[in-house]
Structure formats: structure tokens, C-alpha cells
């Protein structure tokens, strides 16, 4: 038995030694006396890189060294194609760099990122959004960008320094804006024309919105999407009631149930009167195979940068309105934000190359000619200028829209990232579903959303 055990152990050892031999590793990672010591050095290096000071020292890598950069983003088909194209362009220009792309749909992306973070295998350059940037920065998973901004390796136009607000944690920048956007309501241009109505979206209320849906339905028979579907509209709606969404301690909403109720009532009335598709159409919906893309409805809440993809999916002309104003609000909700940002893995072996790539994506004309404003409107004024000179009509539409909304925005909103927002968003979708399936009134639903969300926030923060 003892002999058997020792044989077993020997086999285990052999297999584990072979198994530990690093496969694809960057030559710069050092330590080649034996595979096990290099492994140990790797992990100690990762430890070290989490401390700010040593990070700057270990980060120097010779120029033109071969480097395989993992690059991850979430997106739709339009974005994936554009991004694949710029990766080709960059690697042709920089033959020493190989880029391994990883892309997924939004929710799957964050699920994967969390597991990668736990396993220490995050990509070198990652697409992020502001709440997640704060969350990951808090856990020391992202690389601070300040030194690169100061040295000019990452060029930021003086006019755009304010955009770092959303990505700042304890005074350090952990992301750079990949484009700005605003929430709006995508609409079918032909339907609006056919109905012969005009909309002034700079000062319309949710009541005006309801009237518009009714008028257009009367004239064209076209239904509108549920405006509350998925809860996205709330990120605009919150902003009617204060310069921040959550209390300072992040344990509750600023908005009350009474304030939320009128929004739900608008949608509920339209739903009851049959002016929207029935709720079962939204179960398991995939973008591209949804009622709006298929032309069954003419209005849908979407972000401005998604106008390009929406046009592609719909195959007809789509434009965008600003979100309505809540008549019971205390301020107007117009709001521009960084739609997404680029962040760098704190444990990357070659931060300089990562920044070089990010800088190219953010600031080079050739790259932005391909990307357009699909990720949002560039924060670099020269790029904006260049793009608007020979913009497609859709792109011009996006530019005008973002420009309009930024002029309408009168208040500065505070960036907040409480823990538990995913749970809150499930709560919102579920509660809305209950309302549309006739199990709760708008009043009960508003109450449930605010009360339960406050409970979740209080538990998590």
C-alpha cells in the first residue's frame, strides 16, 4: 500500500511539473531556471504589481519587444466588426504586437470578467463602464493612468479632463472615456412623418410622450415600445429629482415611490389601451430579433451611440429624441455621460504597450475613422471635428443629438457606484413584469421597487 502511495505521488509530481510549464508567456516575465520558480516569481510579481509604488518600476519594458495583448469588450455585431478591423490595422502597423480579442454581449461580459478577476486572468486592455470601473478600482484590479496622462503617453485634451470624474477613485484615474453618449428614445422616422406630428424634445414631458404615442397610433396604427421595459429609462428618470441617484451613504435612492409612480402610470395606461406590444413579446428578447427592429413598434429607449447599430438591425431610418421630463420633477434630467471607457489590467506585464494602444484608439484619426461614434462621441475635439466633416447622416444625427443634450444639461451629476445594482435591476425588471401581467398596480409597483431596492442597497453598502 505504501509503495503504491509513493508511486502515485511520483506520478502526481511528474504530471504537475509538466502541467505547470508555462505555455504562452511573455518573454519579459523573467525567471527561467525552472518552471516552478518562474511560476513563483510570476505570482509574487502579481502581488507586487498591486502595490502602486513597485508598479512603476516593474513596468519598464524594452521597445519593440514581442507582446501579446489580450483585449476584451462587450458589444453588438456592428461594434465587433469595427473593432476587429482596427485590431488588424494596429497589428499591421506594430508587427511586434499580437492582439487576442475577446468579446461578448453585455451581461455575459461582466460575468466572465468577474471570474477572470478571481482567477487573475483579466485581459490587458478592457472596455469598462463607470460603475464597474469604481468597483474594480476599489479592489486594486485596474492600473492607475495618471502618470501616463502627465507624461503625455496618453493624450487627453485639456477640455476633456473633466471626463475623468466618473473614473476617479481615491484621486487616481482608472479609465479613459471611449466616447460620450446620452440616453434617448429611438424612433422610426417614416412613421413620424406619416403621422404628420412634430415633437419638441427639448421640453417635452412624459404626458406629452403619452399623447404622442396616442396620436401616432390613431393615425398610423403603429404601436410604441414599453418605455419602462428593462428599466433603462430610469437612469434618466432618477435625474429629475436630484443631482445624485443615491443617498450619500449609497444605502437608498433619492427618488421616492410617489415620484416614480407617474412614470409607471403612463406606461401602464398605454399598455392597458393596447398601444404597446403585450409583455410576452419581451421575454428572452434578443437585440436584432426584437419588436422594434422587426418594425412592429416605432419607439424604443436606447443610448445615442447605439443609433448606428439600431439602424443596421432595423434596416430602416431610425433617429433619436431626448428623454422626456418628469412634470413632478425638481430639475431637468438632460445628461451626458461616458458611455464606456478603456481600462488597463493592474497585473499587465506591459502597461506601456497597453497605453500606447489605448492612446491610438482614443486619439488617432485613422482608428476613429473606422470606429466613428459607435462607442460614443469622442472626447478629443480634433477627432470630433474630423468625423463631423465627412460624417454619414446617422453619425451626424448622433453628433447633433449629443451636442443638443450637452447644451441642455444644466446640472452636474454626481457619479456613484453602489454595490448591488445588478440585483436592483433584476428587481426592477421583475416588478415591472408583475405590473404588466396584471398582478400589481403602478402604485404598488412603484412602492415595491423603491422599498426593495433600498433594502438591497442597505444590505450591500
Amino acid at each position: 500500500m505504501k509503495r503504491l502511495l509513493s508511486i502515485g505521488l511520483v506520478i502526481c509530481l511528474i504530471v504537475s511539473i509538466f502541467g505547470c510549464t508555462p505555455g504562452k508567456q511573455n518573454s519579459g516575465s523573467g525567471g527561467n531556471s525552472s518552471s516552478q520558480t518562474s511560476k513563483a516569481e510570476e505570482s509574487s510579481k502579481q502581488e507586487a504589481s498591486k502595490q502602486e509604488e513597485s508598479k512603476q518600476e516593474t513596468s519598464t519594458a524594452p521597445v519593440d519587444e514581442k507582446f501579446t495583448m489580450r483585449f476584451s469588450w462587450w458589444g453588438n455585431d456592428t461594434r465587433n466588426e469595427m473593432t476587429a478591423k482596427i485590431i488588424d490595422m494596429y497589428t499591421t502597423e506594430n508587427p511586434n504586437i499580437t492582439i487576442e480579442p475577446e468579446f461578448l454581449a453585455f451581461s455575459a461580459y461582466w460575468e466572465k470578467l468577474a471570474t477572470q478577476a478571481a482567477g487573475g486572468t483579466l485581459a490587458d486592455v478592457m472596455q469598462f463602464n463607470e460603475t464597474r470601473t469604481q468597483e474594480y478600482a476599489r479592489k486594486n484590479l485596474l492600473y492607475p493612468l495618471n502618470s501616463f496622462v502627465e507624461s503625455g503617453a496618453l493624450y487627453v485634451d485639456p477640455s476633456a479632463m473633466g471626463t475623468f470624474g466618473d473614473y476617479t477613485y481615491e484621486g487616481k484615474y482608472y479609465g479613459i472615456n471611449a466616447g460620450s453618449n446620452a440616453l434617448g428614445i429611438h424612433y422610426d422616422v417614416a412613421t413620424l412623418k406619416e403621422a404628420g406630428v412634430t415633437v419638441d424634445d427639448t421640453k417635452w414631458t412624459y404626458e406629452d410622450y403619452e399623447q404622442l404615442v396616442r396620436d401616432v397610433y390613431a393615425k398610423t396604427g403603429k404601436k410604441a415600445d414599453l418605455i419602462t421595459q428593462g428599466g433603462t429609462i430610469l437612469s434618466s428618470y432618477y435625474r429629475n429629482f436630484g443631482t445624485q441617484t443615491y443617498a450619500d451613504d449609497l444605502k437608498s435612492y433619492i427618488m421616492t415611490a410617489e415620484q416614480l409612480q407617474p412614470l409607471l402610470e403612463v406606461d401602464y395606461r398605454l399598455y392597458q389601451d393596447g398601444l404597446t406590444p403585450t409583455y410576452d413579446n419581451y421575454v428572452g428578447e434578443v437585440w436584432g430579433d426584437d419588436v422594434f427592429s422587426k418594425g412592429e413598434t416605432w419607439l424604443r429607449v436606447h443610448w445615442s451611440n447605439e443609433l448606428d447599430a439600431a439602424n443596421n438591425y432595423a434596416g430602416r431610418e431610425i433617429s433619436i429624441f431626448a428623454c422626456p421630463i418628469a412634470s413632478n420633477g425638481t430639475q431637468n434630467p438632460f445628461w451626458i455621460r461616458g458611455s464606456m471607457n478603456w481600462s488597463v489590467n493592474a497585473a499587465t506585464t506591459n502597461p506601456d504597450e497597453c497605453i500606447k494602444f489605448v492612446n491610438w484608439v482614443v486619439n488617432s484619426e485613422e482608428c476613429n475613422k473606422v470606429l466613428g461614434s459607435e462607442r460614443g462621441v469622442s472626447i478629443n475635439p480634433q477627432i470630433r471635428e474630423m468625423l463631423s466633416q465627412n460624417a454619414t447622416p446617422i453619425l451626424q444625427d448622433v453628433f447633433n443629438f449629443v451636442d443638443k443634450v450637452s447644451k441642455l444639461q444644466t446640472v452636474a451629476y454626481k457619479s456613484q457606484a453602489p454595490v448591488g445594482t445588478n440585483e436592483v435591476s433584476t428587481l426592477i425588471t421583475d416588478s415591472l413584469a408583475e405590473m404588466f401581467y396584471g398582478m400589481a398596480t403602478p402604485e404598488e409597483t412603484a412602492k415595491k421597487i423603491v422599498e426593495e431596492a433600498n433594502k438591497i442597497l442597505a444590505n450591500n453598502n
Partner: protein
Amino acid sequence: MADSRTAATETSRQGLWSRIVNNDNICGYIFIAPFIIGFLVFTIIPMGASLFLSFTKYDILGAPQWIGLQNFKTMFTQDPKFWKSFWVTVKYVFIAIPLRLLFALMIALVLSKDTKGTSFYRASYYLPSLIGGSIAIAVLWKRIFGTGSVINSLLAMLGININYSWIGNPKTALLTLIILAVWQFGSPMLIFLSGIKQIPRSYYEAARIDGASGGACFFRITLPLLTPVIFFNLIMQMITGFMVFTQGYIITEGGPLDSTLFYALYMYRQSFTYYNMGYGCAMAWFMLVIIAIMTSIVFKSSSAWVYYESME
């Protein structure tokens, strides 16, 4: 004493290689070593880790914090969705699995006859199981059971007008996923097929000579001799049934109104969407206990209905 021991080591050193090669046990262990190592590294160690994590609050990004039995307390007393997802899964297992086995058995009986093109039919009936829970199936299922779908048009031809989506209706959403599960009967079918092939022809010939009808042959010969295979299929299918995930994740996302929120789907959501990995691990362990209990019940009951020829 000491001399004899050194002598023994001496001989063992000389004959070590031949002893390994000639010893069936050692050879056997070497052959199964890859599995054993894989089992240790990819099953036992992760299981140990998840048992530990089930007593912690762990958000994946940070370090786990020990909170004792808090996760289990929340699960049993404060989380209605936990029970909701549990009952959805139980309902799915108790309806879908017997139906799937029945279906698999029926098709296997038909395909066991050696007629022209059986191998083609066997392959094509197995196909649905191969494509499993893919996006293509999600889209297909929406075309079949969504609004303005195939089913609704068929019903309209019969004069029944339904304009709701079967997938989007909380009362019927689970049913559509059960139909999908029954449709994917390929692997139990193959096992039934090989079981049927194992039954000696002579039994049937003897029965025929004695004047037994086709029905009697099935109930008196095929079914009793097939009970070990049915038992095996039941156990395997029940276990995979409790772990159902993909269909709910891809086709319905747990909706509408959580009517297809399978246990594994809710566990996944807690772990990877809400970052409550500790809670997810606790849920996993509860499921393990439930599956163990259900399996042992089936095992206990087997003496009453499973018939082994060798026991005669």
C-alpha cells in the same frame, strides 16, 4: 533481522520494474491515474473550496469573509426566490424526465427493428440532443412558441385563435421548455436501443410459439429485461434534470415572472451576476443533498421493480 530487511530491499530494487509491469493492481492504478488526478484537481478540490465558500460572504473580486451559517439561514427563511426556483426545478424534473424516458423508449422500440435506413433515423433522432441549448434553439423555439408562431398558426387552422406567446406566458413558459427537454431524448434513446438489442431473440421466438401477442411480448419480456436500463437512465436523467440550466438561461432568461427560473440558473445569477459567490456555493450544496436524497430513494425502490437476470 536487519540483514533480511536489506536483502528484501535489494530484491525489490532489482525487480521493481518487472513487479510494476506484472502487478495487475499497480498497472490498473497507473492507467486510471489520469482520471484520479483530474478528479482530485477538478472535482474534489473545487468541491472542498465551494464547501468552505458556502460559509462565507464572497464577492469574487475580494477575499471571502467567514459568516457561518448565515447563507443557509437566508436561503431557507428570507429568500422567496430560492424556494420558487427550487419548486420550478422539481416540477420540471417530475414532468420532463418521465416524459423524456417514455419518449426515448418508444422511439428506441421503433428503431430497434432492422429495416432499411434505421441507422439514418437513429442519427437524425439523436440530432436534437446534439444542438442542445444553443442560441439557434432559442430562436427556433421562439419561432415555434412565440407570438405569431408556428403553433399559433397551426391552432388557427383548427379554428383556435391564440395570439399570445407561449414562451412569454407565465403559465405555459415552463411547458415549452419541458417540450424541448422531451424532444432532446437522444442519449437515453441510444442506451435503450442497446438494452433492447441485448435481449436474446430466442425469448421472443419461444413466446411466439406459445402464442404470445406483440403486447404480451413487450410487457412480459422487453420491459422486465429492460428494467436495469430504465433504472440507469432514470438515475442519470434525474440528476441532469436537477441541474437544468441552459434552456432557462438562453431561451427565457428565467422569465416570465420567474416561471422558468431553474435552481441552477438562480444559483448562477447569485454567483456571477450579483457576485454573491458564497450564497451560490451554499445553494449548490443544498442541491447536492437533494440530489443525493432523490437518488437514494430511487436506489431503495429499485429492489421492488428492477429485474436482474443473474439474480435468478
